[in-house]
């Protein structure tokens, strides 16, 4: 098991390097470097541009050097000093701009993931064990809708319906009095009910997808011989269902966390813009609109790294649960 984990972690290193190169490439994509934009920005706001500051920044980010050197300097700054670059739009280091928001993004994404699993697995089990029942059809239909309607449209419609009926705009994550307050228990409690909407909306398509996968997997498993064997042994139906086919059907689902998580984070990016939550989505959008590429790039990088780590965790979890992977055995 330790070997397996070590092997998987080693595999990640080239992957992470490749991701960072892609992200840096994207940062460099817009014509001109960020300093040009920065100077332009300062001039427009009427501030005098100090030659010394510019030279300093140029040196700090190696802007006078070729791409590969700039990349290495960027990596060095990031790894050794935790410096993700500078957001000219906020005129602050990127890490300060992103900090809290990134944490909230992760909190919402992970809660959404849990929500997706808690809702989808039981429904999937029900649908599979009651195939072609009325509720099965209902869930299948809801599943189709959930897959077809993008989260941001659902968010928009929910906002509209609530606003028209109650006059309350349920955007944001905090009541006005807590928006700028430091973190406290009261602030967390204030946030919890407001988390429901983003979590449900973000989790919608994931839930729909997972229900379908779970239903399909379980239907496959239910007709397998080992289920009949267990039944022939006299195992009680409910116990049989959970000990054998459900366990078997869930295993492959665990490996889907790898792609569910990035999908949730993706969805969060847009939904949070519509719901105007203080997460990374709205900031990313603004950064992109102003081509504040260090900010946008850092966001992309962090989110990708977190996804990779999530995938790693799900792979380890799967190996722990499935002896066939653990012992490198044959799949049937």
């Amino acid at each position, binding site marked *: 098991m330790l070997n397996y984990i070590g092997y998987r972690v080693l595999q990640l290193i080239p992957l992470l390097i490749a991701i960072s190169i892609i992200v840096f490439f994207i940062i460099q994509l817009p014509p001109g470097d960020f300093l040009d934009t920065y100077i332009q920005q300062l001039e427009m706001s009427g501030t005098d541009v100090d030659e010394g500051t510019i030279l300093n920044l140029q040196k700090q980010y190696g802007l006078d050097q070729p791409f590969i050197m700039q990349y290495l300097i960027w990596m060095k700054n990031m790894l050794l000093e935790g410096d993700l670059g500078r957001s000219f739009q906020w005129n602050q280091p990127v890490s300060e701009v992103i900090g809290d928001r990134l944490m909230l993004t992760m909190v919402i994404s992970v809660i959404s993931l849990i929500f997706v699993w808690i809702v989808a697995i039981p429904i999937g089990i029900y649908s599979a064990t009651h195939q072609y029942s009325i509720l099965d059809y209902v869930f299948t239909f809801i599943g189709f809708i959930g897959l077809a309607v993008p989260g941001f449209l659902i968010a928009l419609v929910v906002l509209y319906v609530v606003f028209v009926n109650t006059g309350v705009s349920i955007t944001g994550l905090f009541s006005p009095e807590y928006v700028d307050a430091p973190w406290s228990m009261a602030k967390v409690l204030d946030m919890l009910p407001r988390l429901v909407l983003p979590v449900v909306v973000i989790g919608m398509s994931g839930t729909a997808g997972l229900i379908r996968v779970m239903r399909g997997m379980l239907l496959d498993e239910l007709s397998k011989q080992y289920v009949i064997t267990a039944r022939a042994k006299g195992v009680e139906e409910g116990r049989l269902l959970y000990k054998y086919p459900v366990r078997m059907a869930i295993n492959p689902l665990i490996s889907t966390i790898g792609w569910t998580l990035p999908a949730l984070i993706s969805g969060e990016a847009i939904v949070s813009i519509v719901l105007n939550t203080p997460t990374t989505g709205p900031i990313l959008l603004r950064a992109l609109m102003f081509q504040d590429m260090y900010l946008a790039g850092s966001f992309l990088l962090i989110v990708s790294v977190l996804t990779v780590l999530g995938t790693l965790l799900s792979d380890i979890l799967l190996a722990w649960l499935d002896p*066939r992977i653990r012992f490198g055995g044959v799949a049937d």
Partner: protein
Amino acid sequence: MSVNIKKQSAGAGAANADVILEVKDLKVHFHLDEGKLKSVDGVNLTIRKGKTLGIVGESGCGKSVTSQALLRIVPHPGTVEGQILLKRGNTGNSETVDLVKLDDKGKEIRSIRGGEIAMIFQEPMKAFSPIHTVGDQIMEAILLHRTKDDSEARRIALETLQSVGMSNPVQRMNEFPHQLSGGMRQRAMIAMALASHPNILIADEPTTALDVTVQAQVLQLINELKEKTGTSVIFITHDLGVIAEMSDDVAVMYLGKVVEYTDVDTLFYGARHPYTKALFHSIPSVASRNKRLESIEGTVPFPMNLPEGCGFYSRCPRAEDGLCNVTEIPLFKVSENHYVRCLFAEEQNPGGVGNEH
């Protein structure tokens, strides 16, 4: 048309005290969108204590579904009708229950499954759950039927594994099915079935998926265990050679019906149903090596919306229009312990391995 059922209810004419399971007019029908699929259509069988009943037939003849019906594990949307009378308890003559009347998810049938009637399956790789250890799966059966104590169950499991000739049973207990060889897996399967001391062991083509050398070992093992424990065996196969080796009585099935029912010697030396005879002809024989291997003409009809009359009509060399295809053919008694579902049973030359004609 069901007049003849009574004639045959004594099965292969066994003394009643010996009989531990009696199947009467068993019907398993699947109600599908396309119509009613009569998988098993009026089967009568008798299982005697300590004896082996062989059920032989081509794939799709209903032999596996029959065995599933005995455990009431016929898959949805199949329905079971008729009577399955089981004498419960190890003494063999206490109360009798009709399994058809039991709730197929209920407590009583569950205590019978695995406890009184155990089953071993064709492909041990698929029949074991790949994510639970062999030990876990064997102990599950023991915990359900013999003891509630974990360490006791473990001891019984080890003992049983030893008795089926498993090498290094202590280590095997903690291994997963994919770590075992095919033969070892089938031994583990047999151990799992026998661990709870069933009265009846159903073996559903237990050797089909195995190498020939391993096949022989497994067959021998089943015969040995039968001798030792006095378990009755229902042996399902499409292989007449295996039948000869294993069975005391034989039921030949075709299209959901028993077409010939007798003891193994009578069958092999005096088969009377054209289908049984055709089966014997299609066995490759060393003695007649320069003859072309015969096969039965045509294919088994799909058991749905079948025409009235004999199911073998379309493939039978003896078939007579206006006779065989008019009404249901009853099971005729041609001699003591020999029943044939054919109008021409009496006039047929007895066939089988002994009679080349």
